[in-house]
């Protein structure tokens, strides 16, 4: 009886586990090809990309594209767990801070230039704006093609300025010190509770918009040789003191726990005077509040600097790159690059319908781009900025900076103590690679 039970148990386990461990097989180079394409939700993109899929499938009858969308907050972990189980999609895109680890670990294939529609890799490199392929270039090979390259400048609601007796064209803040002073004039409080903020930061994105503030003061996140974390104590302390003053225990101008300023801006509800965001915001303002978009009551101004800045640095730019899974068959990789190339050949439509910028030289010099409101402000800030830190440990570093800023803003920790903790943890992280 016992033997029979054991046999039955083993048989059932074998039957149950076989499909689990048998996964991950590759499709052969011949016959129909199915390409899985995972991307974040964006209704405007879905509309045009579904059309590209239909067009591509019509000209490539042996290829089927399966496009799957997930929320932008969930997609990182879904792709990560899929790759951990060697079941990653053929094509995917994320922000470069999250994607670089896939290059570093050999999980993605280098670009097949010919399949993507270029004569060779030089022609492909030459088609893109200088520096825009740097984050995905390792040892001379290119591992991704940009879906979008984004940088942030300051959007201003003119009505809020006028309501506070300010002239938005003249009185907009040029320095971070002015940003705090102007915010103080724009702010409305009910006791300690802010009912209208002048400006507030984009708190989760410390690498994109906070690190440049430190760099303006001469500080750095990581030394050039990559061995030392948190360079120039004075710069970091000045920055942390500024943030402490910004928070509820200082001048009470804003806090991470208030609603996202960028989203509030579109509503034009007298909630926020200024918000930090990208060119894509224009499409979202138009979608959320066409009346406000058409009113001309908003404008865009450059990313400020500190009064005693030693470097003129704007917010970092970051990119979403289409990448192809290196664990797929050669035929699948080729088909995937062909499809990516086909999608990206519609740069102007992406700009007009989705408001995202693909950094090709053709698009950036086109009338479609230069004719967009305030595109020159973004273009100039792009020149002042640099790509966001995208090392394998970028997410952890961002979390450490978040911890330091929040501890001074919200928990009453002194900037000196917060800096010491930040340095120790960041250094430990670098050494534990």
């Amino acid at each position, binding site marked *: 009886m016992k033997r029979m039970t054991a046999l039955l148990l083993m048989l059932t*386990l074998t039957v149950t586990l076989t499909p689990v461990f048998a996964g991950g097989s590759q499709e052969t180079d011949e016959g129909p090809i199915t390409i899985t394409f995972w991307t974040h939700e964006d209704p405007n993109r879905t509309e045009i990309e579904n059309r590209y899929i239909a067009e591509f499938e019509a000209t490539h009858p042996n290829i089927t594209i399966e496009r799957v969308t997930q929320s932008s907050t969930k997609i990182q972990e879904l792709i990560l767990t899929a790759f951990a189980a060697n079941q990653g999609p053929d094509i995917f895109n994320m922000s470069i801070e999250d994607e670089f680890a896939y290059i570093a670990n050999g999980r993605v294939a280098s670009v097949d230039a010919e399949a993507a529609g270029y004569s060779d890799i030089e022609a492909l490199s030459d088609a893109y704006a200088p520096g825009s392929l740097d984050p995905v270039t390792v040892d001379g090979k290119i591992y991704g093609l940009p879906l979008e390259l984004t940088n942030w400048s300051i959007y201003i609601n003119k009505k809020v300025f006028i309501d506070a007796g300010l002239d938005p064209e003249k009185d907009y803040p040029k320095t971070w010190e002015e940003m705090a002073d102007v915010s103080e004039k724009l702010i409305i409080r009910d006791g300690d509770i802010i009912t209208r903020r002048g400006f507030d930061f984009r708190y989760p994105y410390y690498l994109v918009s906070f690190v440049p503030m430190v760099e303006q003061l001469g500080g750095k996140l990581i030394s050039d040789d990559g061995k030392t974390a948190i360079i120039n104590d004075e710069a970091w302390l000045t920055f942390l003191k500024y943030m402490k003053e910004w928070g509820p225990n200082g001048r009470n101008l804003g806090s991470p726990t208030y609603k996202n300023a960028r989203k509030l801006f579109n509503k034009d509800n007298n909630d926020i005077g200024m918000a930090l965001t990208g060119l894509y915001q224009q499409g979202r303002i138009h979608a959320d509040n066409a009346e406000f978009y058409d009113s001309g009551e908003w404008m865009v101004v450059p990313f400020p600097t500190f009064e005693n800045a030693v470097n003129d640095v704007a917010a970092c730019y970051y990119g979403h790159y289409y990448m192809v899974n290196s664990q797929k068959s050669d035929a699948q990789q080729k088909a995937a690059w062909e499809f990516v190339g086909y999608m990206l050949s519609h740069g102007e439509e992406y700009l007009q319908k989705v408001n995202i910028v693909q950094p090709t030289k053709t698009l950036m010099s086109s009338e479609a781009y230069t004719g967009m409101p305030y595109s020159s402000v973004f273009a100039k800030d792009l020149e002042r900025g640099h790509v966001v830190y995208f090392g394998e440990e970028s997410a952890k570093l961002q979390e450490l900076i978040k911890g330091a800023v929040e501890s001074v803003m919200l928990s009453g920790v002194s900037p000196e103590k917060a800096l010491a903790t930040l340095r120790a943890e960041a250094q430990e992280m670098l050494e534990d690679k």
Partner: protein
Amino acid sequence: MKSQQKRIKHQSVEKKQARWGIAFVIPSLVFFSLFNFYPIINAFYTSFFKKKVLSLKPPTFIGIDNYVYLIQSSNFWNSIRATVVFTLGTFIPLLVSSLLFAVLIISIKKGNKFFQIALYAPAVLSSVVSAAIWLLIFDPRGLANQWANVLLNTWGADHNWLANWTMVQISTMLVYFWKYIGYFVIIFIAGLSSIPKSLYEAAQIDGTNSWQEFWQITLPLLKPTVVLVSTMSMLQCLKTFGTQYLFTQSGAPQDPINVITMNIYNTGIRDHRIGRASTMSIILFIIMLFFTWLQFKTSKSDDVEY
């Protein structure tokens, strides 16, 4: 001879039944092995390696280095602190309040079903939805500040529900308490209903009052349910994740509410260090196993028979 034949026949029927019993149990045993035992054994094995989620290289065996690292890590000890504070701050009020509510509801003649449904309703919501609701309430311009200011007569004060070190811990406890109170009230009501009414009638004849009935009859006879609820609520609290995760995603500081499960998630998913995350999981598993064993051991002598 006849009795021996009868016994053999009886045994074969028993064996036949046992065989069917085993056949019915095997699918769930397989399911349990696959989704519970296998991950536990795998996590235990992985905890001895330096392993990155995305790396295609074989993981490096490092013995107990991950355990040593965690014992020396202030970040991990902070997670232990956050988990202990949350568990004690949530499961004790949950246990006491759910018992009180259950006694109160069962004593109400009219409308007790309504109260049961009203209390249970939040339990059917996912942690994400309940955290989203409470994020609106805890917004500086939300209801929490308005209520607190009316009650405390502190006009315009921002109580920093999601910002202050202490308040954010209280906020997570409040959400959990709100979400699970109804669930445990229902379990207590089931336990209370199983106590024979004749015991109360006999006690009333002996002249006891309601207070004495509660302490002398209800509570002693409810001990198995108390043990069940305390074990379940404690394990739930030790596994808490969704509320803390959503709160930190919405701007709340991480350190005060960085419970072990969130640290495991961040170490494994954000930092890609799956070996170290597995080690934390094993430590959490041992903690949970120890407290479950302790609760069952201390309650063994309290088995109740009517």
